[in-house]
């Protein structure tokens, strides 16, 4: 009984992990249709922000929850101004440009910090579930994923800014005609997507440590989740993360992490064969 509870917690944790790494990308790729290959490196920068600032004596919560998204969000805005804004609507070009950015960031961070793992100590202790122990941080990650989804949903659905953002992505000319500067909307949206990536990187830093190449391990899963989810940011991320995360983690428990990852890819393959527009291309089509 306790064991099945532990398994359930780990399943939810994996789902939460996918939500964390995919939300920022869902905003940038799902909403804006910009293929940001450097998304993994945005997460890496978030992780390094946490490592550096905690070394300088900053409280770990301030580092993870405020500094990481802030730093990467600002960086995202700079990237949007310098590179991305010239490439809207040119998918292949933006893919190449962000790939270059990704290589540059990995190289730059390697030169500055070295190609070694930097760690941050975990702010929570263990948590007893019957006779088992689960890391307290697991619950915090699950909570963070819920907060991610809720904040995106509430912003898009109930705020004016969210409405303008959605409208801009659908028809920027119309929005311009109504007196909104769509360039600013694009910039802010990209910055927010980057900030989510930075926050995700910061949240993951205490678990796996940070290393310049960590983005490469995350970007694949993030893209698969977003593509499988389809166009709707919230419903897509949520449904794809739930299906892919729980299946892959269940397989991991039954066998080992190799088959777990393989199962994730296999399920994504089947889903995309059946639903080429992603889950929200067919089901939940009217959701956000």
């Amino acid at each position, binding site marked *: 009984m306790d*064991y099945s509870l*532990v*398994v359930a917690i*780990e399943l939810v*944790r*994996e789902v939460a*992990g996918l939500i964390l790494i995919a939300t920022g990308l869902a905003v940038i790729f799902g909403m804006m249709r910009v293929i940001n290959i450097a998304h993994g490196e945005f997460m890496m920068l978030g992780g390094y922000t946490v490592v550096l600032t905690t070394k300088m004596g900053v409280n770990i919560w301030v580092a993870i929850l405020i500094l990481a998204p802030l730093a990467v969000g600002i960086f995202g805005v700079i990237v949007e101004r310098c590179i991305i804004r010239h490439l809207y609507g040119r998918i292949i070009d933006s893919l190449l440009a962000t790939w270059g950015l990704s290589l540059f960031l990995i190289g730059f961070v*390697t030169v500055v910090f*070295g*190609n*070694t*793992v*930097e*760690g941050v*100590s*975990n702010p*929570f*202790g*263990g*948590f*007893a579930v019957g*006779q*088992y*122990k*689960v*890391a*307290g*941080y*697991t619950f915090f990650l699950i909570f963070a994923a819920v907060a991610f989804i809720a904040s995106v949903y509430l912003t898009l659905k109930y705020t004016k800014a969210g409405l303008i953002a959605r409208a801009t992505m659908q028809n920027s000319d119309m929005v311009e005609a109504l007196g909104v500067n769509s360039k600013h909307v694009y910039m802010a949206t990209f910055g927010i997507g980057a900030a989510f990536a930075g926050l995700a990187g910061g949240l993951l830093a*205490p*678990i*796996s*440590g940070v*290393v310049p*190449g*960590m983005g490469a*391990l995350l970007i694949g899963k993030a893209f698969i989740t977003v593509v499988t989810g389809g166009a709707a940011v919230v419903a897509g991320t949520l449904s794809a993360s739930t299906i892919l995360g729980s299946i892959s*983690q269940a397989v*991991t*428990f039954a066998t*080992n*992490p*190799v088959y*777990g990852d393989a199962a994730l890819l296999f399920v994504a393959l089947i889903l995309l064969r059946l639903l080429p527009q992603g889950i929200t291309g067919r089901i939940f089509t009217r959701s956000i």
Partner: protein
Amino acid sequence: MTRDISRRSMLKGAAAVGAAGALPMLPFAAEAADEILVGGLHDLSGFLDFAGIPMNRIMLMAIEEINAKGGLLGKKVRGVVYDPQSNMSMYSQFATQLALKDKATVVMGGITSASRETIRPIFHRFKTLYFYNTLYEGGVCDRNEISLGTTPAQTVEKLVPYTMGLWGKKVYTIAADYNYGQITAAWVKRYVEQNGGEVVSTDFFPLDVTNFGPTISKIQSAKPDMVMSVLVGSGHLGFYNQWAAAGMKNEIPIASTTFGAGGAEIEIIKPEVANGIISCYGYYPTVDTPENKAWVQQVKKRYPEKTPLLTELSAFTWEGMMIWADAVRSAGSMDRMKLLEVMESGKTYTMPSGKVSIDPKTHHAIRDVYIADLKDKQFVIKKKFSQVQPADTQLVCDLEKTPNANKHYEISLE
């Protein structure tokens, strides 16, 4: 026009100087006849740089030391260092270059078994003496290679009964999913069973796995008396943090065949997480002999800042250089066969790690091994085993009978 030095061209010039400055290790093509060239192939960048950089710096220190004592055969020794960047195709390229273009008399290097198996056949073919100084899974049978690192029969065979005696007979193994991890895990199973214990489960992880949540739950449900970690590389270090974060640190103890082997682990993983992990290697900086104390001081004096991490890997690289230099002096020649004959003669060398000799049958080291408990970044040595034979490789290899062997055996445990 010539006076018009624009800011842009200045910047270009500065960039070029910077780029040149970043590559101080590039070898010079000169082939001075009064120099003896020693090749170094260690990963100075990429995911193994934490291990390769100390090995390379210790090799260069050994070269300086040999030159300070007057060089060899009246000639200076010079290191030719390449950075294979943890990339196998660069390993084979640089190995060929060292053998054919630079004509190095001896090469130190290779860290993973994959890199060794890339370059070993090249040095065998071109008859360039080769030293492999890393602990590995055993089984290389090649007269051209001297393998100074420990093998499972030297370390796992001691570590398993020692930790089972401390903690109990139920063992859960977690291992890296490539040849080193697979083979070492098989040895763990064999030794656990020989000592009357049971391996309740063995889980393998590709090197890029960083999330060990499910594994930690599985270990808890299996309730072993101890965990044997054969995890490798920076990604796997996440296990130790997650283990401690789940509050398992004081519940189930960990022994490891790899933790601290590269040295960087004890810097990356905080003491409150790493304390109490028991390991077994052929060298620790805390080995209590006058030779080792003097050597540690020598390293600190040579590299007062950013002192290289002293581990089996770096210590054995120095030993390799010294054993080679001794062979050159004894043979009075650079001839490869004469050097091999000196090293095969069963000489005993007194080294920082203890007494070392080369087993003529396998060209592996017969050496002292130590079991240590990690406490606040210090390896506290608990037990010493003298003159341990590379019994695993001896099962499959006899170079006295087959001097032309050129093979890496996967030692069958069936």
